[in-house]
């Protein structure tokens, strides 16, 4: 074990040792990896956009194991990187321990709240974006039954499902929402075969629009939906292009904007709680050439109206994580 730790330490030190100029921003990817076509990749593209626009450089590391979290944070902080951006709720504990030791360094954590004076916590109102795609699903559905397929059964994914169900019911109170989770282990994020089976099962129950919030599993959902001739909804980044004309829309989570913003603000940024919702374009629906034939004018109008209402605070979408319950969907 000690040998293992030494190896891990050595490899982390190697990875972090390269390039030690002062006050470069740093970005730490979660275990999903930099190119997950979704969450981490969005963070990477935000950082890249910042680098291209400013000519600056940033340092990055992809975690290989849980044990590296705190170590990576400390290494970056000690080498003078500032600000340090990390993606994923799993950094919460590690950052909580590390942040106080480096009061001069600014930290940005995405998808989690860490209450320290030098931490900016960025959270997304996924329920709001899911509400909007739920409205579109209900309008596109002819059978009055729509589906939701989640990845791993965690509160965050239930938050997606709950917002979606509320959006569906807002358009059609009699609509039925079938919600399934792929599993309870991290393998549930990468099981497209099971995603396909769940899709077929939901189609058998009458669903004709299915929203996938399931990482790699979603690839199977979108594929099967396209094969079987029903509509699907993508998540996190714009997935409309995967099956042009078969994907109704995608619920966008602009992690790239959050990372870009953090790097632009640089050291000395505003700390505290940063909510990215419909109001500040942190979440939204994807409209492009691939789905323009699927989205009718009234569909778009209703979504825009709801988005405006959510932004102004007139319409409140219930957040599953606020009380661990959902008015429109039972799990």
């Amino acid at each position: 074990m000690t040998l293992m730790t030494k190896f891990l330490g050595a490899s982390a030190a190697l990875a972090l040792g390269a390039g030690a100029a002062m006050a470069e921003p740093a970005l730490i990817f979660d275990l999903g990896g930099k190119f997950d076509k979704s969450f981490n990749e969005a963070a990477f593209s935000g950082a890249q956009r910042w680098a291209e626009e400013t000519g600056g450089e940033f340092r990055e590391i992809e975690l290989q194991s849980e044990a590296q979290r705190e170590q990576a944070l400390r290494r970056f902080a000690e080498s003078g990187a500032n600000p340090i951006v990390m993606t994923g709720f799993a950094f919460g504990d590690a950052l909580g321990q590390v942040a106080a030791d480096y009061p001069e360094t600014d930290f940005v954590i995405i998808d989690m709240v860490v209450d320290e004076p030098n931490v900016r916590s960025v959270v997304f109102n996924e329920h709001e974006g899911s509400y909007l795609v739920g409205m579109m699903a209900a309008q596109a559905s002819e059978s009055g039954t729509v589906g939701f397929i989640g990845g791993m059964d965690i509160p965050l994914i239930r938050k997606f499902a709950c917002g979606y169900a509320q959006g569906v019911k807002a358009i059609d109170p009699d609509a039925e929402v079938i919600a399934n989770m792929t599993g309870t282990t991290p393998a549930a994020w990468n099981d497209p075969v099971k995603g396909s089976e769940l899709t077929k099962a939901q189609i058998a129950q009458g669903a004709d629009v299915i929203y996938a919030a399931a990482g790699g599993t979603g690839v199977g959902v979108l594929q099967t939906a396209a094969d079987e001739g029903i509509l699907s909804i993508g998540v996190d980044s714009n997935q409309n292009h995967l099956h042009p004309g078969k994907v109704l829309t995608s619920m966008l989570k602009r992690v790239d904007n959050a990372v870009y913003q953090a790097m632009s603000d640089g050291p000395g940024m505003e700390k505290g709680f940063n909510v990215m919702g419909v109001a500040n374009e942190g979440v939204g629906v994807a409209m492009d050439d691939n789905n323009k034939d699927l989205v009718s004018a009234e569909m778009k109008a209703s979504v825009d109206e709801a988005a405006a209402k959510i932004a102004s605070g007139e319409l409140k979408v219930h957040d599953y994580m606020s009380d661990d319950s959902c008015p429109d969907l039972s799990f």
Partner: protein
Amino acid sequence: MDYTTLIQLLDSTVRLATPLLLACLAGLFSERAGIFDIGLEGKMLIAAFFSAAVAALTGSVWLGLGAGILSSLSLSAIHGVASITFRGNQLISGVAINFLAAGMTVLIAQDWFKQGGRTPSLMGGARFETITLPWAEALAPVPIIGPLYADLISGHPILVYIAFACVPLTWWILFRTRFGLRLRAVGENPAAVDTAGVSVVGLRYAAVAICGVLCGLAGAYLSTALQAGFVKDMSAGRGFIALAALIFAKWRPWYALWATLLFGLFGALETRPDVIEALTSLKVQGQLLGALPYVMTVIILAGFVGKAIPPRAGGEPYVKER
């Protein structure tokens, strides 16, 4: 539950059971010859990747299938060299194969396709199409038998039929041919086989190679028949469930068929909580069904239902006496 739902459920069972069945038979050949193989998962994964990657590059699913089988065979060769020739620990070699496959697939995929460890979506001839058996259309309106034939038996990709045909074939090879007798003997008492002048090493390599081919079929089925492309770690533990099925089946081909169909049925039921609720009027958590294959395997291993006795020489490298 009406008849249509039942057919849908069984259809889903067949789809989910097929990769398990192929992997289970793969494990059966290997373990019957005395080579434990927990690298089924890794072989399936690498075959899934290479069949999807080559199918994507060439547009031909058959070339993809060939590449998948070759890649799986090469991992089998590594396992063979490590555990037969160099008499290494078979479990450790298997674990290494799983890690190797998990890492290598994503690395190569990223290098070739730059899509985050994924292959592009396969279209047209790069995918196995479903086969409609003769008279399926004509029989479809017939009550009971019609849907059974048209929806359940017909309408699967060719790999499904191959997988099911492999069951009697495996039985015949193992229990009705000279090769099969020797293969089983080498897993029970390799010294006796050696004394009879038959090569233990040769037989074990043959078994490991058959295992590689079958795992290759299973992997290709995942990525080019069930799915239209490779996603990292897409085998999602099916190799381990197949091992559980193998123990459940007590290393016998026909039992392997029933065991994998049963595990497939659990998987299918997991996707239909509404059916379970309608049948039992209980709200059963799907996760419970997902865990059942493992629970049942533990029960079998503990000796509550019959006794699962592995091949006697399993896991032991053969050292010729001097």
